[in-house]
């Protein structure tokens, strides 16, 4: 009931926003944001109840669509994804009120709030649907609504292009999902998720095909590495609060779909786990490497989403290996780590995109190399961004550490206790996670350092100002969430109990035992972290006390004793990342244009680096170009003559009639 009222509120709010905000003079953004916040509060109540052990709610309504039924259910797995979805939706909506203010007087904001509401509604329905037709309808609703949100600034060519790339990618993914659902329906004779889960698939070959279809279909939405091309285009193009929502939770519906699909397919063979580990590794490592090479702040964050999806895939891979071998430790820790990372990533990636949005809002540019020194002008944004950066790098005591720690722990424990075909991928997981973590630290040192530290690199910064409270509040709440989860680590791990019972189908005691072993070691980490923080706080106090009666001079940042420092002596984004990008050159394909300084008194020199997306350039572009060349041979059919178009229709009808009754 709670859920239905939440959905009704969303729909009602969306329609009201669309109908009311028709002219710039009628733009009341609160009217669009408020229903989302209200729906989030209403919707979170049952989700949290279920996670705490409440009964699973079901709701059936017959639906006149063939094979369709409006069948929704809130089980622990759905609830686990629903909570971050609703939370981030609400916070991003509040942020959007402030973020959209520059457009307030220029264009009607009805459509963007309408599609925002629909996107949240679509995500909710995707998570709750238990009928394949309803699921696909919700999936499309989500895709279409987010397409219109991405193309909000449609007057810019680059935004329209990004929108189309997203639209094509998401629909190609849906094609695979359609095949997936149809195959399952043919096998079981039902469109009901419950029936699928109860019957399972018993032929190995078919299960393998279904697994691949699910990985491609859901992986396109989630952004697994070769399928990720739309992420680095769509996220920068969208308004920042929408990027936060899409990157923070919308792509997680892909992960949810994959986990739901696992419940239909029976016991997984070993190669599924291998496959997911391989996908996770490539997404994680390549994602963070491409992020390092970017110059656009939001594009960098988009590649980090690919990286984090990779980490989640590693967790799921470990869990699948556990399912094939029947090892409870691998299952609980692998799936647990992956699921926890879903929540964590929603928080810190949402926070980072909102922070990036504040930077864009304040300075009007996303180019990292044009920024610098924003810490002094935007202290709140900088502090929040720093928390997000530390969290995403997986450093204790923040939440990113927690989920990666669970996956690490699972891989170590499993690697020791099992042998051969399971131990190898687990070792790969350990090495890969370590590499990803290290590179992520490097990348966020670059992002934070170049954007917020140092001196202003261009005129853009001089206009910068701190954002107002509607934008500050969501960032601070998300930052508090990151820190809170990190500091309450043992409690958080305990809250996974219900979901893991649901996913792994293990007995509650087994899950509780495994989790309890983990919480013990986590407690040490938390205590250590708290001690460290107290130490830092004490040192700050001591420093303040010692400096209180002395003269303190402030000088330019990184002056380094030069008599006349200029801003161009600072590191740039490219130069900071250069050692690493050079090291991984074969994987990145960075293009460099260098006119080096010559002679004793060099006059001019320039360096330009560019890292286009490798799979887009090498894989999709040739593929689509070949397709276009092939299809353009049929161009003569489209001649613009209306009469002949009608002739096509008439001739087809006649041929069909004659063929039918011959």
């Amino acid at each position, binding site marked *: 009931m709670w859920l239905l009222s939440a959905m009704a509120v969303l729909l009602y709010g969306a329609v009201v926003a669309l109908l009311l905000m028709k002219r710039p003079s009628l733009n009341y953004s609160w009217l669009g944001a408020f229903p989302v916040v209200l729906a989030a509060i209403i919707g979170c109540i049952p989700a949290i109840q279920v996670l705490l052990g409440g009964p699973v709610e079901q709701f059936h309504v017959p639906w006149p669509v063939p094979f369709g039924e409006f069948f929704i259910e809130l089980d622990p797995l759905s609830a686990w994804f629903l909570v971050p979805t609703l939370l981030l939706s609400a916070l991003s909506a509040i942020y959007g009120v402030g973020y959209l203010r520059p457009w307030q007087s220029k264009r009607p904001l009805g459509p963007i709030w309408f599609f925002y509401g629909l996107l949240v509604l679509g995500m909710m329905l995707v998570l709750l649907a238990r009928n394949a037709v309803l699921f696909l309808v919700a999936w499309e609703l989500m895709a279409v609504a987010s397409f219109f949100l991405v193309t909000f600034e449609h007057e810019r060519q680059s935004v329209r292009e990004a929108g189309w790339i997203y639209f094509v990618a998401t629909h190609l993914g849906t094609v695979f999902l359609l095949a997936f659902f149809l195959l399952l329906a043919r096998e079981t004779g039902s469109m009901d998720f419950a029936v699928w889960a109860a019957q399972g698939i018993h032929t190995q070959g078919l299960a393998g095909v279904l697994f691949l279809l699910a990985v491609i279909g859901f992986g396109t939405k989630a952004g697994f590495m070769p399928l990720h091309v739309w992420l680095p285009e769509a996220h920068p193009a969208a308004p920042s609060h929408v990027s936060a929502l899409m990157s923070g939770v919308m792509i997680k519906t892909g992960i949810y779909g994959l986990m739901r699909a696992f419940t239909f397919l029976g016991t997984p063979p070993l190669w599924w786990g291998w496959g997911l580990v391989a996908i996770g590794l490539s997404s994680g490592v390549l994602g963070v490497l491409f992020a390092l090479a970017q110059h656009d702040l939001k594009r960098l964050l988009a590649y980090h989403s690919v990286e984090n999806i990779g980490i989640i895939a590693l967790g799921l891979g470990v869990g699948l290996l556990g399912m094939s071998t029947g090892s409870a430790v691998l299952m609980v820790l692998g799936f647990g780590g992956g699921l926890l990372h879903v929540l964590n990533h929603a928080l810190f990636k949402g926070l980072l995109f909102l922070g990036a949005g504040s930077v864009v809002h304040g300075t009007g540019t996303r180019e990292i190399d044009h920024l610098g020194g924003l810490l002094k002008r935007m202290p709140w944004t900088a502090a929040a961004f720093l928390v997000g950066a530390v969290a995403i790098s997986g450093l204790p005591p923040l939440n990113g550490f927690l989920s990666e720690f669970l996956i690490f722990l699972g891989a170590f424990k499993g690697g020791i206790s099992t042998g051969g075909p399971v131990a190898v991928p687990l070792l790969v997981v350990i090495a890969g996670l370590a590499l990803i973590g290290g590179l992520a630290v490097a990348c966020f040192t670059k992002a934070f350092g170049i954007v917020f530290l140092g001196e202003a690199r261009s005129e853009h910064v001089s206009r910068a100002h701190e954002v107002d409270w509607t934008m500050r509040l969501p960032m601070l709440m998300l930052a508090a969430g990151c820190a809170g989860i990190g500091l309450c680590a043992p409690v958080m791990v305990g809250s996974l109990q219900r979901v893991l019972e649901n996913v792994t189908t293990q007995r509650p005691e087994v899950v509780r035992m495994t989790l309890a072993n983990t919480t013990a070691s986590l407690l040490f980490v938390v205590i250590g972290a708290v001690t460290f923080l107290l130490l830092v706080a004490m040192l700050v106090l001591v420093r303040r006390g010692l400096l209180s009666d002395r003269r303190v001079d402030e000088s330019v940042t990184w002056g380094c004793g030069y008599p006349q420092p200029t801003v161009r002596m600072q590191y740039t984004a490219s130069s900071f990342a250069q050692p690493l990008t050079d090291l991984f050159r074969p994987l990145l394909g960075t293009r460099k244009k260098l006119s080096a300084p010559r002679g004793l008194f060099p006059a001019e020199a320039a360096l330009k680096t560019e890292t286009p997306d490798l799979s887009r350039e090498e894989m999709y572009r040739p593929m689509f170009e070949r397709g276009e060349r092939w299809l353009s041979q049929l161009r003569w059919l489209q001649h*613009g*003559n209306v*009469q*002949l178009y009608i*002739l096509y229709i*008439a001739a087809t009808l*006649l041929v069909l009639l*004659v063929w039918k*009754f011959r």
Partner: protein
Amino acid sequence: MFITNLILALVVLTNLKLLGSSRLGASIRVVAAQGVALGLLPILAHWPELSVHFGLLAAGTVAIKGVVFPWLLFRAIREAEIAREIEPYVGYAASLVAGAVALGTSFWLCTRLPIPENIASPWLVPVSFFSIFAGLFLIVSRKRAVSQVLGFLVLENGIYTFGVGVAVRTPFLVEVGVLLDVFVAVFVMGITIFHINREFDHINTDRLSTLKD
């Protein structure tokens, strides 16, 4: 029975006349005549059992097809000030031959179709098919937008004939809906013709092909 068949023969003849005619004004009048004839069909097809339903349907059809449409189309011609010639892609003689072939095809098709028993006349279904084909042919083979509206009307007449004769229990509402659809379509087309003419100084749809991307 006799009168029904007479009307159906009239429909066939008017269709052939449309295919062979070179004058716009004459074509509009012929379509109007066809509409009036068809308007009487529901009464005659169910002769002994007269009802308000059929009476209303007939009156509405005659009024719209016999009076309103011709008036709208003549007005469109007058306001767009177009020459009163049809300008076909396919010549009139060739059109007539195509019409004959279409007539044959429709009769042949109906020998294969499962036709209900209690039908007013065995010609009803073939004639309705012939009207549909003739309408489509007119749309395809003529350049003027007005001619295409006429083709569209003939096509609709074919569907109407089929509906009246075969689907006896077609709800009143559906038929009225179809009529309303066509009315709106003709109305919109009339306005569109006027606007196309004002923008481009002609209403030849073949020259609109420059609008393709």
